[in-house]
């Protein structure tokens, strides 16, 4: 295997973000055709990832070398899979949006966020470093938040976006803790602490030692649990699945892209990625159990849904459960289930969402009870739906059948070996699959049966909306045909070779993947037969089953939503957030910030055992004492100034005293700056003074006491910091470096590059040695001016532009 190309990977990663930056501009130029610009970007990314198909390994770009953080990118089967899925489905989704978003508001924002999301998702796929992975991970949550809340003024959208944000981002924080623990343990195991997950000198390379290290530190189960929470929040596993059905408030392309094909795959991707590192008996118990539970609960909830998007959302959670269960089971079929089903599910579920979008768009309803017999109006869409939904149902020879068959085999094998309660695994798997079969057939009832009279004329969808689901269903169909070929001995080798590579990256040794229709009555084939048989018998009782599930789901303590809403309402009612933290008043934020900073600083000193320097070692000349004395008096006088003008003027006494102090301390540059700044601030103050109220009302005693304490604490902290930091005397102070190089050497040529070449060392540092910092500072000045413009000058313009 050749090693991957650093430049290609960097371009793949940077491309969507750069495209996102120019997307609003492109929108201005070409209007809604910006969708095809997005599709082109996705296609380019897809092509570039394709060039890396033969590569494997890690490339590293140093990022924060002093902390050993680098942007390391890793290419292997699993990351290629996710990369292909994200960019490939991205092409189709952007194309589809070109038709779907025709009448929708906020297109520029929509496409920009979608591009950012695609970049973040590619980052998740290729990141080899835990910190980079975390950053991209949270970025996908944030972009998902914006996309779910696309209809900003709709309360349902707001609720859904907030819910998704809280659950997925909070899950990400669990992940962060797990990553930090792994980082700590890696120091003991490998000698140096590393964040590197995959590749050379990484945690996965030393997986056995890492497991030992984690166990001896007693951290194995906690790390496993933290990872599981993070992954479950992202991949909508029970009981954290509740955000996914609400997320369907987003426009349908978003649901198809983020909430079925890619973002929710991040969690299962993570589980697959960590499988070789943490695979163990606990791993199997946790993820096989979690996955099968989610698979069953999701499938049961799906049959009570009347809205087709809600049905698909629950079904997504259910299928993600299937993948998680697959990755959970340590037997080789487990890995095969997970790897194969990621691909299969992405294909058929994205197609079904796009079908749902077409139906909603053209027939004007998303409710199963209002729709039926649409195949006459939408024949191509119906064909797509048949291929995709039968794949979802797991009927042979459609693609979902093979991966479900693998799951059955894996669960059966696990039960056969462990015995006892493990027999629950195959039973639950079959039980969940029956419901999957039921709702898949129900979905197809959109297109068959009687056409309700109330349904008005249904338009045919435009080509950009029709082509993407057709392509997806064709691919799903081809995978299904590959299985038929496999049965006849003609193997679909490109796919099988690719799956083998994925299996290697999820920890299977010497994978030998092949898929075909069962030719003899294996246990798995029997389980499939039971699923289909019971499903077919139960279908006539669909409505009754749905009513039962509905009744079960309405038992409040069984519903995670009840807990979520309960906590949120409690926070609202008690005012913990609204009255203590987010009051909307600057003084509250300032107090929390200042107290927090002071507490952290003092805590840091205590933890590090900092000793205060002896005060007697400080000697001051008489002039400085006088100047500082005046400054202190001025500072005290400010607090009792009778009017604003007097206060401001007294404050500037303090400022000018500081300037004089600088002069006495031989710092003319600082003194000059202080003088002019002080003057300017005085002027600014005088400009706004007459706008301020002269009288603020009486202060409460409690307010005075808390404010005094806060300002006291902050003052003491700053004082201590100055004392401690100035007491340290490094062996070779940093200024000697600048002094040696700042001036003009006595012998010099006409050009001087190595040296600063100026006798004002302060300025030479500013514009030469540390020019990059100064560049940042002037950008901040520009930024501050811009924000003042936005805050004050444009506030009356509102948001209607």
């Amino acid at each position, binding site marked *: 295997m050749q090693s991957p190309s650093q430049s290609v990977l960097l371009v793949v990663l940077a491309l969507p973000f750069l495209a996102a930056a120019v997307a609003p501009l492109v929108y201005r130029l070409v209007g809604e055709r910006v969708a095809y610009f997005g599709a082109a970007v996705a296609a380019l990314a897809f092509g570039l990832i394709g060039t890396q198909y033969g590569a494997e390994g890690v490339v590293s770009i140093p990022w924060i070398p002093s902390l050993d953080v680098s942007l390391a990118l890793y290419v292997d089967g699993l990351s290629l899979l996710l990369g292909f899925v994200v960019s490939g489905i991205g092409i189709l989704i952007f194309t589809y949006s070109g038709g779907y978003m025709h009448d929708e508001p906020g297109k520029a924002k929509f496409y920009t966020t979608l591009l950012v999301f695609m970049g973040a998702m590619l980052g998740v796929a290729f990141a080899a470093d835990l910190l980079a992975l975390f950053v991209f991970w949270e970025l996908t949550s944030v972009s998902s938040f914006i996309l779910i809340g696309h209809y900003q003024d709709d309360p349902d959208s707001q609720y859904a976006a907030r819910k998704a944000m809280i659950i997925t981002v909070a899950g990400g924080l669990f992940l962060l803790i797990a990553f930090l623990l792994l980082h700590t343990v890696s120091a003991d195991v490998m000698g140096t602490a590393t964040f590197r997950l995959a590749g050379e000198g990484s945690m996965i390379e030393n997986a056995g030692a890492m497991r030992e290290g984690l166990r001896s530190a007693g951290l194995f189960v906690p790390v496993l649990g933290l990872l599981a929470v993070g992954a479950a929040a992202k991949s909508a596993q029970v009981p954290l699945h509740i955000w996914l059905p609400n997320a369907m408030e987003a426009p349908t392309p978003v649901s198809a892209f983020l909430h079925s094909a890619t973002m929710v795959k991040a969690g299962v991707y993570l589980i697959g990625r960590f499988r070789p590192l943490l695979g163990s008996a606990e791993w199997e118990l946790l993820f096989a159990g979690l996955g099968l539970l989610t698979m069953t609960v999701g499938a049961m909830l799906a049959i009570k849904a009347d809205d087709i998007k809600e049905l698909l959302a629950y079904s997504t959670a259910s299928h993600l459960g299937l993948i998680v269960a697959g990755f959970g089971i340590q037997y080789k079929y487990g890995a095969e289930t997970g790897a194969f089903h990621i691909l299969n599910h992405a294909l058929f579920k994205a197609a079904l969402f796009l079908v749902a979008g077409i139906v909603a768009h053209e027939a004007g309803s998303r409710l199963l009870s209002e729709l039926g017999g649409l195949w006459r109006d939408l024949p191509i869409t119906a064909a797509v739906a048949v291929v995709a939904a039968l794949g979802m149902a797991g009927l042979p020879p459609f693609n979902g059948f093979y991966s479900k068959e693998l799951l059955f085999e894996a669960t059966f094998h696990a039960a056969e070996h462990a015995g006892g309660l493990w027999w629950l695994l195959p039973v639950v798997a079959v039980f969940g699959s029956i419901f999957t079969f039921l709702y898949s057939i129900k979905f197809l009832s959109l297109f068959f049966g009687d056409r309700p009279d109330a349904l008005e004329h249904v338009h045919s969808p435009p080509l950009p909306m029709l082509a993407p689901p057709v392509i997806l269903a064709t691919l799903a169909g081809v995978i299904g045909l590959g299985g038929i070929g496999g049965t006849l001995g003609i193997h679909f080798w490109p796919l099988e070779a690719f799956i083998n590579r994925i299996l290697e990256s999820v920890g299977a040794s010497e994978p030998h993947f092949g898929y075909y229709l069962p030719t003899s009555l294996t246990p798995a084939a029997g389980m499939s037969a039971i699923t289909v048989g019971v499903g077919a018998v139960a279908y006539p009782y669909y409505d009754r089953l749905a009513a039962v599930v509905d009744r079960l789901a309405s038992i409040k303590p069984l519903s995670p939503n009840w807990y979520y809403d309960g906590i949120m309402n409690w926070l609202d009612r008690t005012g913990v957030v609204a009255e203590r933290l987010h009051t909307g008043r600057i003084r509250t934020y300032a107090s929390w910030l200042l107290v927090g900073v002071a507490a952290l600083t003092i805590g840091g000193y205590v933890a590090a055992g900092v000793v205060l320097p002896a005060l007697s070692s400080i000697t001051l000349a008489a002039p400085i004492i006088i100047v500082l004395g005046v400054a202190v008096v001025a500072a005290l006088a400010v607090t009792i100034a009778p009017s604003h003008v007097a206060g401001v003027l007294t404050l500037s006494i303090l400022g000018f005293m500081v300037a004089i102090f600088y002069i006495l301390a031989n710092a003319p540059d600082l003194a*000059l700056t202080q003088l002019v700044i002080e003057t*300017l601030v005085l002027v600014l103050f005088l400009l706004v003074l007459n706008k301020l109220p002269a009288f603020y009302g009486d202060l409460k005693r409690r307010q005075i006491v808390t404010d005094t304490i806060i300002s006291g604490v902050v003052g003491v902290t700053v004082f201590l910091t100055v004392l401690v930091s100035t007491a340290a005397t490094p062996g070779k102070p940093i200024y000697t470096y600048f002094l040696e190089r700042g001036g003009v050497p006595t012998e010099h040529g006409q*050009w*001087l590059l190595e040296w600063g070449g100026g006798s*004002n060392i302060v*300025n030479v540092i500013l*514009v030469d040695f540390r020019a990059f910092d100064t560049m940042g500072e002037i950008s901040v*000045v520009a930024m501050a001016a811009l924000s003042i413009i936005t805050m004050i000058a444009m506030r009356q313009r509102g948001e209607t532009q």
Partner: protein
Amino acid sequence: MSGESTPSTTDAETAVPQVTDGDTTVIARTVVRIVVPIILLVAIALLLQGHNQPGGGFIAGVLTTTGIALVYIIYGLHYVEDNLLSGTILPRSFPLDVGDTGSESSASITKEFGEVFTIGLIIAAGGGVAAMALGYPFLTQAVVFLEHLPIYGEVEIASALVFDLGVYVVVVGGLLTILAVVGNE
């Protein structure tokens, strides 16, 4: 800089009715007229000598802003706008709701200053990029000594001056924006 303020003497008569901050005295106005050019001159001197003596782009920028702030306070915002900024009331590319006269003037003036600090950033970054074009890292600075010049003898020219000029322009633009916006309130 001082060239720009010369129209103030000729337009003084017409400018008086536009004074918004009202009751400034003749003394203040006269003093400002004399002092401001000196302030601006000092600021430029600080900018130029910064490499070898106290000074530099930041200080010079703040000092320039202070000078212009004096004009603001004494003559009012509209005076500066009409006479120093060639009478632009409505900016070229800054659409605003007509009728909201209060924010019109501020918007036009902030637009001008917005352009100023953008130019500053371009100057500062451009100097750095120029170093890259010559094959050195971003923001590498050099010094060239020109010898045997008439009158001056040897003169040292630092490329850092370009960067400092960028700093100066950004600070002037940024602070004047803030001043104009806040002052207009």
